[in-house]
Structures are given as structure tokens and as C-alpha cells.
């Protein structure tokens, strides 16, 4: 019924407000980011001149940036391994049929529903050597334990990853759980009759069936991790030194604190291109994997 041409105007009027908002908040600024990235803009010194791709070349000679890239890589890989391994385990726990199922699922939703800043601010204190929750907990088992987590680069990185997992792993697990609902119980019955144990049927039935789901989820979770900002902003402020400054945090520091907008934009463009490339590649991979 809507083939009539007069409806086309209505169609566009309906779409327009949403479209305009998105254009002004994403398309316009991203074009600006591209443009500024070709300029040397130092607001503090009033410099604003065209430098071509110089900013881009500087990225790979900036030791702070290299630290950032390294830590972002560690953060993303470490966190994603945790997400996948523990996420599957947690999804299976959530899928157990027992009286507490509904309550447990509600509890697991909580970390997802909370702002990362609150968790990260609390974590700053939780990882305190003397009075923090984490060490207090460890001292239940090992009374002489001592470690100031956020003062050393390696332990601070681990702490950041742990907090990220606490916050987002439950969400990941719930999404895997959604996929598990589609695995019919007939298959397990059949496997049981054929003599397969629980572990065997997990690896031969469950895992292959949900692997595409996990792959697609991992793509999105990887993207989100590459652009993570809140956790580091509130928990470590990129420290100690620059060791936990994720790329997103580095960009905002350059753009808003050092007022080095040209350089910040060039990092932003690289980040954007990496994201675009990754999503294109992984979408293609996801299409190919089909069970």
C-alpha cells in the first residue's frame, strides 16, 4: 500500500530528525577529524599550519604512543581470552537447570547495568595495598600477602584487565546464553544414547553450534575494548607513568589536556581506520564460518 510516490515525502520526513542528529554528531566530526589531522594545531602556542601527513609519521616515533599501542594490544588480547574462556563457563552455569536460576541471572545482570566509572573508582581503592578489598580477600588465605597493585606497571595492567572482566564478562556470558537457547535438547539426548558423556557432548555438540555466535560477539567485544576509555580514566589515569594509557585515553589527553589537536586527530584517524578494517575483515570471516 505504501508504493505510492506521495508516501516517499512522508518517509523522508519521518527519517530526517534521527538522520540529522547522527550526521551532525558523527559524520561531520569525523570529516573534521580527517581534516585537522593534516594540520599542526597547537592551541596553546597559537600554531595552526598545514603539515600533510607529518602527524601520522610522528605517531610511530612517539614513545608514549608505542607504550599505548602495546598496552592496548595486551589489554584487548588478555581481556578477550578471559571473556571467551570464562564467558563460556559462566554461560553454562547460567544455563544450569536448578532452583536458583532466575536469581542468579538477575545477579549476573548487575555488573552490566552499572556505570564503568563507579566500578573503576571503587577498584582504585579495592586494589590498594593496605585497605583494599582485593588484598584483604587474598589475606584470608595468605595472611602475609602484600602488593600495591596500581604502582607497578604489570600488576596495574592485570588489575585493569580484571576490572574490565568483572564488569563485562557477565554481559558476554548472557549473550552466549542467548545462543545456547537455540541448541535443542534432542541432540544431547541422542548423544547420551550413543554413550557420550557431558564433557564429550560439550565439545562435539555445544561448542561447534555456538562458535559462530561467539565469533560474532567477540568481534563486537574486541571493538569495544579497542576504544575503552572509562576504566583507565577513573581507575589509573593511565598510570603508573604511561603504562596503562589505552589509545582512547591517549587521544583525549592529547586533544583536551595537551591541546595538541592535530596530532590527536591523526591518532584518532588511525584508530578509526583500524576499526573499520577489523570490522570488514571479521564480518567476512563470520560469514564464512557457518554451521
Amino acid at each position, binding site marked *: 500500500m505504501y508504493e505510492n510516490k506521495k508516501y516517499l515525502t512522508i518517509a523522508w520526513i519521518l*527519517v530526517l530528525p534521527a538522520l540529522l*542528529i547522527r550526521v551532525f554528531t*558523527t559524520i561531520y566530526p569525523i570529516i573534521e577529524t580527517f581534516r585537522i589531522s593534516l594540520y599542526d594545531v597547537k592551541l596553546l602556542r597559537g600554531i595552526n599550519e598545514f603539515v600533510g601527513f607529518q602527524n601520522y609519521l610522528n605517531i610511530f616515533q612517539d614513545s608514549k604512543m608505542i607504550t599505548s599501542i602495546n598496552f592496548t594490544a595486551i589489554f584487548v588480547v588478555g581481556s578477550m581470552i578471559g571473556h571467551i574462556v570464562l564467558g563460556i563457563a559462566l554461560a553454562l552455569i547460567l544455563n544450569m537447570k536448578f532452583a536458583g536460576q532466575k536469581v542468579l541471572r538477575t545477579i549476573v545482570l548487575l555488573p552490566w547495568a552499572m556505570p564503568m566509572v563507579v566500578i573503576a573508582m571503587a577498584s582504585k581503592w579495592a586494589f590498594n595495598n593496605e585497605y583494599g578489598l582485593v588484598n584483604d580477600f587474598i589475606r584470608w588465605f595468605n595472611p602475609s600477602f602484600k602488593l600495591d597493585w596500581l604502582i607497578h606497571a604489570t600488576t596495574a595492567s592485570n588489575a585493569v584487565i580484571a576490572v574490565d572482566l568483572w564488569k563485562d564478562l557477565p554481559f558476554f556470558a548472557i549473550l552466549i546464553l542467548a545462543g545456547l537457547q537455540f541448541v535443542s535438547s534432542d541432540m544431547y539426548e541422542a548423544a547420551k544414547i550413543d554413550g557420550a558423556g557431558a564433557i564429550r557432548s560439550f565439545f562435539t555438540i555445544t561448542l561447534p553450534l555456538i562458535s559462530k555466535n561467539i565469533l560474532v560477539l567477540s568481534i563486537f567485544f574486541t571493538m569495544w575494548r579497542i576504544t575503552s576509555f572509562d576504566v583507565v580514566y577513573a581507575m589509573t589515569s593511565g598510570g603508573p607513568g604511561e603504562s596503562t594509557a589505552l589509545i582512547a585515553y591517549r587521544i583525549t589527553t592529547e586533544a583536551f589536556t595537551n591541546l595538541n589537536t592535530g596530532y590527536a586527530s591523526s591518532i584518532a584517524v588511525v584508530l578509526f581506520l583500524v576499526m573499520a578494517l577489523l570490522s570488514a575483515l571479521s564480518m567476512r570471516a563470520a560469514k564464512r564460518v557457518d554451521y
Partner: protein
Amino acid sequence: MFSNGSKRILLRCLMWTLAIVVAFLILFPLWWIFVSSITPSGELFSKPIKYWPVNPTLESYSYLIENVGLLEKSRDTIIIVGLSITIGMILSVMAAFSFARFKNKGLSLAVAFLLGSMLIPDVVTARPLYDFLRQVHLFDTYTGLIILYISGIIPFTILILQNFLSDIPVSIEESASIDGCGFLQSMFYVTLPLLRPAIATVCIVNFITCLNNFFTPLFYSNGISVLSTAITQLPLRDNMYAVPWDLVSSMGWIIILPIIIFVGIFQRQIMEGIMAGGVKG
């Protein structure tokens, strides 16, 4: 080995153990934040931590109300989040309706753009957007913040609503038009009521998304501060540690408690909302 009965008991025990471990890992830190928030600030420096309040006090909360402007910040948060969800929903329903019912090249392109723009990270657009908002005098205004919050929820909302709308047959609207309904009438009185469950679910998820939005208020406002940014700007107390833990824990709990209640009430809808987005995603 084991008999069938004892095997089942063993399995039960294992299930409950796993469930309790998971629940403990999630709830225990929250409990710790709560206890800290009602512990007198001096007693926070004790080893080992007391997980049961010995001298409960509300002094941190009253400090937040008197000196940090907790009530104003809560009010601002509610205004911004409430308006964003409402306006965002209206705009998204309009767009989703259009996308689900009308087909042409331009519109397909618009959908692709709207959904594709989800992949553009906040940090990439931050600095130009900040300068732009300053130029048009929307920086640090309710209007500016609300526009940005709306922008954040539009793609997800349209995605879910459009999926729902595609499942509602056009024939319903056709019969309405035969009965003499105009376009707007049939949209309002026929299609919209059918969409109500989807709208409720998406609103609930959007509420959480908006409430947790930290990046937008951090960079695009100054004077207006919502709860999520306020927690990072608490005044430092004169102690040797960089965290005013008494205030952070009580501020944190003020943010967390409504969320716990909210999740408890809407558990089912939230699950549906997440899964609807997740399976398609």
C-alpha cells in the same frame, strides 16, 4: 562408583557451589561498597576490613547532599536521561516505521549509514564535536547533552524497533486505511499499540545506557554534572590517599542502588532486550 541417587545429589551440590561462587564474586564487592559508605571515614583505614558496620553512620551521605550538591545532580541526571529516552524513542519510532514500511535506494542507504555509524568510536569524534558544540553555543547546555545522549541511543533503538515492525504485517494498516484511517491515524492507533512491548523493552535498556553514559557529560559539559561524572570529581579529603573513599563509596552506592532495584524489577525485559540486540548483532 556412585548410585544414581547420590550422583544426582552430587550434581546438585556442584551446581549450587558454582552458583554461589559466581554470586559471591559479583555481590561481595557491592556489599563492601555499601558497608564502606556507612562506615565513619576514620574507620575505613582498618586492617582487616570490617564487613559488618560497627558504628553505622550517614555522615558521608549528608556531606554529599550539603557540599557536593547531590540532589541537584540527581535532578539533572533524571531530567537529561528522561528527556533523552523519550525524545530518542519518538524519533526512532518514526524512523523505524519509515524504514520498515517504505523501500527505496535512498532509504536503504540511510539505514546502512545509521547502523554503520555505531562503529564510529566516541574518541574519534570528540575534539571536533567539542569545538562544534562551542561554536553553536550548545556546550554545557541541557539541549546539547540531550542531543548527544539521543544520538547515542538512536542506532540501537531503530535496529530493534525495525526488526519488530517487520514482523507486524502491513495488512493491518491496509485494513485500517480501508476503514477510513489516515496515515498518521493508522500509525498511532493501529501499529503503535502493537509495538508497545518492544518500546518498553528498548526504553529499559536505553535507560541503563544513558545513565551509564560517562564520555558525553565528561567532555561536553562543565557546570551541568550528572552522577556518573560527579563521582570522579569528588573533593579530596586531607588524607594521604588519592581516593576520598568515604565519599566515593556513598556516591557509588547512590548510583548502584537504584540500578539494583531496577534490574530486579525488569530482569525479564532486560534479558529480552539484550538478547534481541545480541542475536541480530
